[in-house]
């Protein structure tokens, strides 16, 4: 990549004035750092993955309304977690976390267990029980 070819497209951090370092060659063919404000091809890849997260959230909301999944599943998706990450934050085995994603199991959970989830998501118990979806 030549220095004059370093892309300066709009990206998610254009509004923050942040630029990232890439390596490129100057006219004499010497390598050095150059700043890029973003690249369309890459922003599109990032957006694609963000869209997928949004789709997953919508899907989860549907399933909660149908009484299939628990609010834990909703907060997990919103905070971009998966059962592996969540199990780390609540300090429980993964299989337990996966069970707690089911609405039926969730309704029988003790306050103490629910509190662990509320702490992990940094919300209150009532927010956990009644998510605004």
């Amino acid at each position: 990549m030549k220095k004059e070819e370093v892309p300066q497209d709009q990206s998610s951090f254009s509004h923050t004035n942040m630029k990232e370092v890439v390596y490129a060659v100057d006219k004499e063919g010497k390598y050095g750092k150059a700043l890029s404000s973003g690249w369309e091809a890459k922003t599109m890849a990032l957006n694609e993955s963000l869209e997928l997260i949004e789709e997953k959230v919508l899907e989860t909301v549907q399933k909660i309304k149908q009484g299939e999944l628990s609010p834990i599943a909703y907060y997990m998706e919103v905070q971009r977690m998966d059962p592996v990450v969540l199990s780390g934050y609540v300090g429980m085995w993964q299989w337990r976390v996966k069970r707690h994603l089911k609405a039926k199991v969730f309704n029988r959970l003790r306050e103490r267990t629910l509190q662990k989830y509320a702490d992990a998501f940094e919300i209150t118990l009532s927010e956990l029980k009644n998510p605004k979806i």
Partner: protein
Amino acid sequence: MKINFEHNQSAHCENGVVSNLLKYNGLNVSEPMVFGIGSGVFFIFIPFIKVNYAPMFSFRPVPGFIFSRVSKRLGFKIKRHKFKSKAKAQQTLDAELTKNNPVGLQVGVYNLTYFPDEYRFHFNAHNLVVYGKENGEYLISDPVMPEVTTLSHNELEKVRFAKGPFAPNGHIYYPTQLPQDVDLKKAILKGIKQAYRHMLAPVPIVGFRGIRYVAKRIRKWPDKIGVKKTNHYLGQLVRMQEEIGTGGGGFRFIFAAFLQEASEILENPKLSELSKEMTVIGDQWRDFAIDASRLYKNRSRETDAYNKIADKLDAIALAERAFFLQLKKAIK
């Protein structure tokens, strides 16, 4: 207190932290140099491990490997601490800072307040340097940011104790006992040797064979898992290739910069020629990313389009194979 630490914005967090810490301790090595000595150029495709609902691709070794290789090859020691207790983690950090010792920290990205929202994922192998504490705020030099910044005690504790894969557990590290004189030439040769060994490894998912394997799968994906999933998988590949920290083209440009520097130090003009070839390969990767992004923009359903970008990837695999064979010859 504030340690007189020089912040240099870098492409990649791990190399940047290592390079900045070494510079502070009186050993002047650039980011590409750290990357090259640590054999950072790599490729692996792990179809059976899913990250973010897509198979895992990586253009670099496991986090932490580059640093430990560099320390071994340049002959310095790294002191590392990990903690169970959050209070102890903070005490140790504060104690090092009062000793005027800037330290590297492994942190999770999700709760880094100064990152743009779009980049906040649960990725736990980010690196930054803490170089002081003023009015209860920690002074942070994050190598991918243009300027230094600060984090409060709580904010720092949160990212140091992020959970999930690669959980940092408050991990702090710093170089100790730097050797009097460093044999840079020997270290560079070692770095190059391991790089071509890995890229030419007789393992189907590693190096140029790994790239070829991905190309083969791309041809099958549209029929097997559908266009939507294929596009998502391609998006994942492009993200790994171009995300902040790669310096563009899946680290290929940083490696080319390293070869150029190495050519001068080793007085080997062949390496300078190879640096140019690596630049061409990096450009090929960028081309591939553009084509891939067109696919998920247009959501085109013709399978021929997928064959075409698979051809591109095949060409890259061939080019990298030829390149690393030449590199092997060049340093003999």
